[in-house]
C-alpha cells in the first residue's frame, strides 16, 4: 500500500470515529442523519477492506486457483458460474426482507444510539462473518446445505436438532411477519385495497407468463409494477367512497383469518399462477425502494428527532419489555446478524459462485448492505417526532384508544405531543388513526413518507408515499409467507417421512394438503394469538422471533467453529467463536428472562400467573373483555414459555455437540474436515 492510499484509509477512519463521537455525545434537540450515514459507510468500507480481507486470506484461506461447485458441476441450471456482481445481487435479494426494516424501528424506543452501535458492531464481527464463513464452507463442500454440513461435521443428532430449530423459526417468522401486515392494514381501507389488488395483478402476470409470453419475466414485472403504482394512486380515490371503503375495512381478527386462508391457497395453487409472479414483482420493488430510500436520505439529510438514549433502556419500554441487555441484541436480529442467512448462504448462492475469491463480496459484502438497510430503517424511525413514534408503537394497554389518553400517557414518559397533532399526523397520511400500529411497518412507512415526499411531490404526496411504503413492505412479507408456507410444507413432509414414508410423496395430494394445513395451522396460531393479545402481539412475539433467529446464528457459527478446528485453523478460532459465544449468551439470557422473570411484563410464566390469579378472583384485567379471553392469554403464555425454553435447549445441545466434535478433531494430528478434494481451475478459466 503506498503512502497516499494509507493516508486515505486513515482519513476515512478519522471521519468514522468523529461521526460516531458526534452521535454519541450530541445532546441537542436534533442531530443530522449525515453523521449516522458517515459513521456507517466509513466503518463498512474499513471493515470490508481490512477485516473481511483478513478473514479471506488468513482465517479461511480463499484459494483463487480452486474450482468451485459451479465450475465442477456446471449444468446450466442449478450450478452456473456467474459474474460476482450478479451473484451479489441475487444473494442480497434473497437475504433482505422485512426483518432489517422492523427490528431497528422497534429498537428505536431506546433511542437511536444503542441500535446503531449494535448494528455496526454486530454486522462487522458477527453477521457478515457468519454469512461469509457459511458460504465458504458450503463452497468447499460441493454446495451442501447448512443441515447437511451440520450432520457431516458435528453429527447426525446435531443435524436433527438444527432441522427442528429451523422449522420452529419458520412458524414464528411467518406468524410474526403476517402480524406486521395485519397491524398495518387493520382499519386502513386504502392499504387493504392496494394489498388486495396485488392478488389479481399477480394472477394476471402468472397467466401472461404461462400462456402469452413464457419466460419474459422482465416485461411482465414492468407491467405489474405500473399496475401496482396505479393501485396505490387510485386507492385513495376508491376508498373515498364510503361504500367501497366499507368493503376494504377490516379489524385485525378478520384480516388474520383472511391471511391464513390466503396463505393456504397460495401454497397449494401451482406456483406459476400466484407465488412466482409475486416473487418477481416484490424483488424488483424491494431493490428499487431500498435504492429510492437511500437516495432520499442522502439528498435530504433529515434531522433525527429521537434522542440518542431514552429512559426505556431500563427495560420499561412500551414497544418491547426488557432491559438493553439482552433484549436489544435479539430485537435487532436481521440487520446485525441473522441466522436465517446461513440457510441462503448454503442454498442457491454457493451453486453460482465462479471463484472462491468472490465469496468475500457476496458473503460479507451483501450483509453489509443489509445492515445499511437496517440503518436506513433506524433513520426513518428517528426522523419522526418521538411522540408520534410512541403513539404508533405502544399497545392500547399502555396508551388507551383515544388521542387524548395517548397524548397524556406519552407526556408521562416525557415526550410532548398534543392530541391535535396525533389527529393531524393521521390525516396527513390519509388514515383515520395512527394509534398502536405496532409492528414497525407503519412507523417506517410514515418515516419514509416524511423523507420521500421531499424529493417527490411535496406535502400533497405524503399519503401516496405512506401507502406506497405499506404496499412495499406488505408485498414482500406476503411473498415470504407464501414461499415460506411451501418450504415449511416440504420440511414437514421430510420430517414426517422419517416416520411414515408415504407422507414424503410430494405428488400425493393427501400428504400435500395435510402438511400444508399443519404448516399454516402452526403459523396461523401465532398470528391469531398476536391479534388477540392485549399487549399487541408484536410486544410478545417479536422477542420470540429474535431469540429463534439468533439461536440459528449461534448454531451456524458453532458449525463454523467446528469447521475451523477440523481444518487445523485453531489459531483463528476466535473469529467465529467470539460472536458464537456472544449470541449464545444473548439468546440464553433472553430466553431465561422470557421464561422465568418475575416481572409479568417480561416473563411469560409470571404473566400467566398474574392472569390466572385474577381469574381465580373472577376479575378482568383490561383490555381483556371476557374470562375466556383471559384463559386464552394464560394458555398462550404457557406455550410461548415452552417455546422459549425449547430454543434454549436447542442452543445448549448444539454447543455441546459442537464442543465434542471440536475436542475429537483437536486430538487428531491431521485435518479432519469433510472438504471436497482440491481440483484446479482450468487454465484461462472456463
Amino acid at each position, binding site marked *: 500500500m503506498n503512502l497516499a492510499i494509507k493516508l486515505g484509509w486513515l482519513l476515512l477512519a478519522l471521519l468514522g470515529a468523529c461521526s460516531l463521537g458526534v452521535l454519541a455525545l450530541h445532546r441537542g434537540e436534533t442531530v443530522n442523519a449525515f453523521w449516522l450515514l458517515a459513521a456507517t459507510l466509513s466503518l463498512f468500507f474499513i471493515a470490508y477492506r481490512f477485516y473481511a480481507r483478513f478473514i479471506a486470506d488468513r482465517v479461511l484461506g480463499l484459494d483463487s486457483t480452486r474450482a468451485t461447485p459451479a465450475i465442477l458441476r456446471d449444468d446450466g441450471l442449478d450450478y452456473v458460474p456467474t459474474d460476482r456482481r450478479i451473484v451479489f445481487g441475487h444473494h442480497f435479494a434473497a437475504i433482505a426482507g422485512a426483518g432489517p426494516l422492523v427490528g431497528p424501528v422497534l429498537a428505536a424506543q431506546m433511542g437511536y444510539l444503542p441500535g446503531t452501535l449494535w448494528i455496526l458492531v454486530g454486522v462487522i464481527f458477527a453477521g457478515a462473518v457468519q454469512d461469509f464463513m457459511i458460504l465458504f464452507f458450503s463452497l468447499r463442500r460441493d454446495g451442501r446445505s447448512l443441515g447437511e454440513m451440520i450432520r457431516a461435521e458435528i453429527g447426525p443428532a446435531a443435524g436433527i436438532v438444527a432441522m427442528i430449530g429451523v422449522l420452529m423459526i419458520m412458524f414464528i417468522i411467518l406468524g410474526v411477519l403476517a402480524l406486521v401486515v395485519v397491524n398495518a392494514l387493520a382499519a386502513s381501507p386504502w392499504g387493504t385495497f392496494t394489498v388486495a389488488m396485488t392478488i389479481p395483478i399477480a394472477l394476471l402476470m402468472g397467466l401472461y407468463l404461462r400462456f402469452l409470453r413464457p419466460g419474459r419475466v422482465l416485461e411482465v414485472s414492468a407491467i405489474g409494477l405500473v399496475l401496482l403504482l396505479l393501485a396505490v394512486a387510485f386507492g385513495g380515490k376508491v376508498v373515498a367512497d364510503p361504500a367501497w371503503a366499507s368493503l376494504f375495512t377490516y379489524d385485525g381478527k378478520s384480516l388474520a383469518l383472511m391471511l391464513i386462508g390466503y396463505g393456504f391457497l397460495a401454497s397449494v395453487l401451482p406456483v406459476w399462477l400466484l407465488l412466482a409472479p409475486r416473487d418477481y414483482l416484490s424483488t424488483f420493488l424491494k431493490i428499487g425502494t431500498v435504492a429510492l430510500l437511500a437516495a432520499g436520505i442522502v439528498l435530504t439529510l433529515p434531522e433525527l428527532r429521537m434522542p440518542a438514549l431514552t429512559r426505556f433502556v431500563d427495560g420499561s419500554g412500551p414497544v418491547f419489555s426488557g432491559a438493553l441487555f439482552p433484549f436489544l441484541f435479539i430485537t435487532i436480529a*436481521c440487520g446485525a446478524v441473522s441466522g436465517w442467512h446461513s440457510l441462503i448462504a448454503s*442454498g442457491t448462492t454457493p451453486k453460482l459462485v465462479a471463484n472462491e475469491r468472490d465469496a468475500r463480496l457476496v458473503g460479507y459484502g451483501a450483509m453489509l448492505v443489509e445492515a445499511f438497510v437496517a440503518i436506513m430503517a433506524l433513520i426513518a424511525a428517528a426522523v419522526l417526532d418521538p411522540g408520534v413514534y410512541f403513539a404508533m408503537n405502544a399497545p392500547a394497554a399502555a396508551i388507551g384508544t383515544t388521542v387524548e389518553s395517548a397524548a397524556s400517557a406519552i407526556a408521562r414518559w416525557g415526550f410532548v405531543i398534543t392530541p391535535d397533532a396525533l389527529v393531524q399526523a393521521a390525516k396527513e397520511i390519509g388514515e383515520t388513526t395512527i394509534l398502536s400500529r405496532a409492528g414497525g411497518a407503519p412507523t417506517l412507512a410514515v418515516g419514509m413518507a416524511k423523507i420521500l415526499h421531499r424529493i417527490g411531490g411535496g406535502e400533497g404526496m405524503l399519503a401516496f408515499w405512506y401507502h406506497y411504503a405499506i404496499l412495499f413492505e406488505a408485498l414482500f412479507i406476503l411473498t415470504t409467507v407464501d414461499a*415460506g408456507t411451501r418450504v415449511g410444507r416440504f*420440511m414437514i413432509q421430510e420430517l414426517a417421512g422419517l416416520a411414515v414414508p408415504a407422507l414424503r410423496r410430494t405428488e400425493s395430494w393427501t400428504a400435500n394438503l395435510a402438511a400444508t394445513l399443519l404448516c399454516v395451522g402452526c403459523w396461523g396460531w401465532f398470528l391469531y394469538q398476536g391479534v388477540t393479545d392485549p399487549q399487541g402481539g408484536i410486544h410478545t412475539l417479536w422477542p420470540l422471533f429474535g431469540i429463534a433467529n439468533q439461536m440459528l446464528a449461534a448454531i451456524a457459527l458453532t458449525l463454523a467453529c467446528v469447521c475451523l478446528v477440523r481444518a487445523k485453523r485453531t489459531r483463528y478460532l476466535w473469529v467465529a467463536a467470539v460472536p458464537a459465544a456472544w449470541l449464545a449468551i444473548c439468546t440464553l439470557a433472553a430466553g431465561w428472562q422470557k421464561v422465568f422473570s418475575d416481572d409479568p411484563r417480561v416473563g411469560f410464566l409470571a404473566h400467566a400467573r398474574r392472569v390466572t390469579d385474577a381469574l381465580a378472583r373472577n376479575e378482568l384485567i383490561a383490555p381483556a373483555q371476557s374470562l375466556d379471553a383471559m384463559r386464552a392469554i394464560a394458555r398462550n403464555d404457557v406455550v410461548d414459555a415452552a417455546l422459549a425454553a425449547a430454543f434454549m435447549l436447542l442452543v445448549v445441545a448444539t454447543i455441546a455437540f459442537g464442543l465434542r466434535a471440536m475436542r475429537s478433531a483437536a486430538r487428531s494430528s491431521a485435518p479432519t474436515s469433510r472438504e471436497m478434494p482440491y481440483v484446479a481451475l482450468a487454465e484461462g478459466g472456463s
Partner: protein
Amino acid sequence: MSAIRLRRLWQRAAANARRVLGVPDYDAYVAHLRLYHPERAIPTRSAFFAEREAVRYRGGGGRCC
C-alpha cells in the same frame, strides 16, 4: 453504437436482471446443451421456464425474513 450492439447489450442486461431474480438464462442453457450434451433434446422456452419455476419453490431456504 450500432443497433445490433445496443440490442446485444440490452439482452445481456436483461439476462443479468433475470439471474438476480433467480431465473436461469434459457439461451445460455441451450448453448450449454449444444456444447456438452448434443445428444439431449432441447426443451422449448416455455417448458424450460415452467420446469425451473417448479424447482425453484420446491424447498431450500426460501426467502429471508
